C-alpha cells in the first residue's frame, strides 16, 4: 500500500494547522478594530476633560486619523492624558484655566496636521505589506471555514425543507415535485452554490478585517481593495471554476456570489465576525442528529401510509416497450442491410470528453466486405433524440419532431463512431441515439433501433448559459 504523504499532511496536519493559524491571525488582527477581546485597551476618555474645546480639538484630529477603532481610541486617550497633564502644569505656573487650555492645545499644533502625522506614523509600508499578506492568508482560512459552514447551513436548510414537506405529506398536503425532472440537479446545484456563497462571504470579511488590523487602516478603507479582488476571484470561480450539476436556480445563485463577496466587504464590516465556540458546534451537531432522526421517522410514516397506492400507480404507468422510432425515420429494407443488421453490438462510454457511441457494422467482417455494405449508404449519421420523460417510458419522446444533436458516423475498424456531449445539454435528461443514412432511393432510413441513456449536466455556470437548447 502506498501512502500519499502530501495529501495526508494537508488533510491531517498542515491543513488544520493552517486553518488554526488563520483564525488566530484574524482574532489578533480584530483586536485593533476595537471589538476584540483586548484587555489592555485605553481608558475611556468621554467626559474626562470636561472641556468642549478639547473635545472639539480631539474630534477634528480624529477625523484625519482613518485608523482602526482601537488605534483611534488609543490615540485619543493618549492625547487627552497629555492635555490634562499639560493644562495642570500650566495652571500650576499661574495660567488661568481657559488660557491654559488654549496654550496646551496650541502646543500640540493644528489638529488636522497632528492627525495626518499620526496616521502617517501608523500606516507604514511594512504594516501595509503585512496587511496584504495577512489578508490573503486569512481569506484562505475564511474560505475553508466558510465552505464547511456553508455545507452545514445548506444541509440544515435542506433538512428543514424536508421536514416541512414530510409533515405536510402526513397531513395529506402533497406539494408538486419540482426536482425529479432534472435528476436532482436543482437541489445539488443549490447546495453547491450556497456553500460557495457562504465561503466567499467569510473569506472576504476575514480578509478585510485582518488586513485592516495589520495595516492599521480603517476597515472601510481597505474594503474597496478586497471587494474588487473578491468580485474578480469569486466571479471567475462562480462563472468558470465551479463545475458540476447545474440548474437555472443554481446558476442564478452562483451569479450572485461576486455580489455577495462585495457586500461582505462593506455591510456591517465594523462588527466582529461571529466566532463559533465549542458549545455552538455541539448544539449544531445535536440539531443535525435530532433533525435527521425526525426526518427518518416522518418519512417512514409517510412510506408506510401510502405504500399500496404507490405500487398501484407504478403498475399503471409502465408503458409497453414501444420505442416510437418511426418518429425518427422508417426502418431500412432488410435487403439493403448486412446480415444481422447494423448495431448488433451497440455501445457507449462516458468520459470527461463526452459520451462515445458506436455501432458495429458487422462482427469481424473483413474490410472489403464492410466497404461493400456501406456502399449502399451515404450521409451516415447518429441522431440524438430526447428520450422518455420518466423511467417507465422508454424510447423517443414523441413530443419532439427533430433530434437535438446530430453527429456524422465515422468508420473506425468495423464500427461507426460518434462523440456526443450530453453533459453539456440543459434540457435533455434522457437521450436515444439512432443510426440513420440516405439509401439508394434517396430517402433517409433508420439503420438500427439505437440505444438510450441518461444524462446529467456537468459543467460550469458559463457552460450552462452558453449550452445549446
Amino acid at each position: 500500500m502506498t501512502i500519499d504523504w502530501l495529501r495526508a499532511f494537508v488533510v491531517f496536519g498542515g491543513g488544520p494547522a493552517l486553518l488554526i493559524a488563520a483564525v488566530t491571525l484574524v482574532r489578533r488582527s480584530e483586536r485593533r478594530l476595537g471589538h476584540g477581546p483586548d484587555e489592555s485597551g485605553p481608558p475611556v476618555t468621554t467626559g474626562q476633560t470636561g472641556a468642549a474645546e478639547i473635545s472639539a480639538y480631539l474630534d477634528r484630529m480624529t477625523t484625519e486619523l482613518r485608523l482602526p477603532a482601537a488605534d483611534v481610541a488609543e490615540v485619543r486617550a493618549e492625547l487627552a492624558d497629555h492635555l490634562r497633564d499639560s493644562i495642570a502644569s500650566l495652571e500650576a505656573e499661574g495660567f488661568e484655566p481657559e488660557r491654559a487650555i488654549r496654550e496646551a492645545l496650541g502646543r500640540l499644533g493644528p489638529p488636522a496636521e497632528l492627525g495626518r502625522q499620526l496616521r502617517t506614523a501608523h500606516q507604514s509600508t511594512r504594516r501595509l505589506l503585512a496587511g496584504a499578506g495577512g489578508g490573503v492568508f486569512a481569506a484562505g482560512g475564511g474560505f475553508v471555514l466558510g465552505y464547511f459552514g456553508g455545507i452545514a447551513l445548506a444541509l440544515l436548510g435542506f433538512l428543514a425543507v424536508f421536514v416541512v414537506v414530510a409533515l405536510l405529506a402526513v397531513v395529506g398536503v402533497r406539494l408538486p415535485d419540482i426536482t425529479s425532472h432534472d435528476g436532482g440537479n436543482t437541489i445539488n446545484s443549490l447546495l453547491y452554490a450556497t456553500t460557495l456563497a457562504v465561503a466567499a462571504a467569510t473569506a472576504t470579511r476575514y480578509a478585510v478585517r485582518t488586513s485592516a488590523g495589520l495595516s492599521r487602516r480603517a476597515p472601510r478603507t481597505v474594503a474597496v481593495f478586497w471587494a474588487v479582488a473578491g468580485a474578480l476571484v469569486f466571479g471567475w470561480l462562480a462563472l468558470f471554476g465551479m463545475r458540476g450539476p447545474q440548474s437555472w436556480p443554481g446558476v442564478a445563485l452562483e451569479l450572485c456570489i461576486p455580489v455577495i463577496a462585495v457586500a461582505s466587504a462593506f455591510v456591517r464590516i465594523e462588527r466582529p465576525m461571529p466566532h463559533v465556540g465549542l458549545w455552538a458546534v455541539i448544539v449544531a451537531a445535536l440539531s443535525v442528529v435530532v433533525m435527521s432522526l425526525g426526518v427518518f421517522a416522518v418519512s417512514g410514516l409517510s412510506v408506510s401510509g401510502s405504500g399500496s397506492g404507490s405500487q398501484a400507480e407504478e403498475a399503471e404507468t409502465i408503458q409497453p416497450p414501444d420505442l416510437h422510432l418511426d418518429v425518427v425515420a422508417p426502418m431500412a429494407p432488410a435487403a439493403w442491410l448486412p446480415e444481422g443488421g447494423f448495431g448488433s453490438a451497440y455501445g457507449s462510454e462516458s468520459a470527461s470528453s463526452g459520451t462515445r457511441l458506436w455501432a458495429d457494422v458487422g462482427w469481424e467482417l473483413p474490410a472489403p466486405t464492410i466497404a461493400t455494405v456501406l456502399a449502399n449508404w451515404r450521409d451516415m449519421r447518429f441522431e440524438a433524440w430526447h428520450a422518455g420523460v420518466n423511467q417507465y417510458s422508454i424510447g423517443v419522446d414523441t413530443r419532439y419532431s427533430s433530434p437535438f444533436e446530430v453527429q456524422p458516423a465515422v468508420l473506425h475498424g468495423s464500427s461507426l463512431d460518434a462523440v456526443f456531449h450530453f453533459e453539456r445539454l440543459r434540457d435533455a435528461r434522457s437521450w436515444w441515439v439512432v443510426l440513420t443514412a440516405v439509401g439508394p432511393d434517396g430517402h433517409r432510413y433508420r439503420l438500427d433501433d439505437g440505444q438510450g441513456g441518461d444524462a446529467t449536466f456537468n459543467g460550469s455556470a458559463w457552460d450552462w448559459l452558453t449550452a445549446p437548447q
Partner: protein
Amino acid sequence: MPGRIRGQLLKGTTTLLVLTVLREGELYGYEIAQRIRDNSGGAFVPNEGSLYPALHALEAAGALEASWRESDRGPRRRYYKITKTGLGMLEAHAQEWAAFSLGMARAMGVAGPKQ
C-alpha cells in the same frame, strides 16, 4: 545657559532625544517631553505636536513597545519602553549625531582640527 534652541534646529533630533530618555526607563508621553526639557537644562523643548507622531512611528518601526497601565497617580497611561531594535537605532543615531556636531564645531572654528 544658551537659551532655548529654535525648533528648526531640533528637526530630526526628536528621535534621538526620545530614544535617549527612554534608555533610562519606561515613560509616558508627557513625561518624555518633560524629561527631555529637564535633561537639556531647558535648552530642548520638543514640539509636542511632533512628539506623538515620532513616538508612534518608532513603535511601528519596532524601536519602542507601548502598553497601557496604571500610573503612580492618576488614570491609566500609555507607557513606552525601548526595545533591542531601539537600542541599536539609538547607537546609530548617536554616532551620526556625534560626527555631525564635531564637524559643525570644526567648521565654525570652535573645536580643534582633525588629528
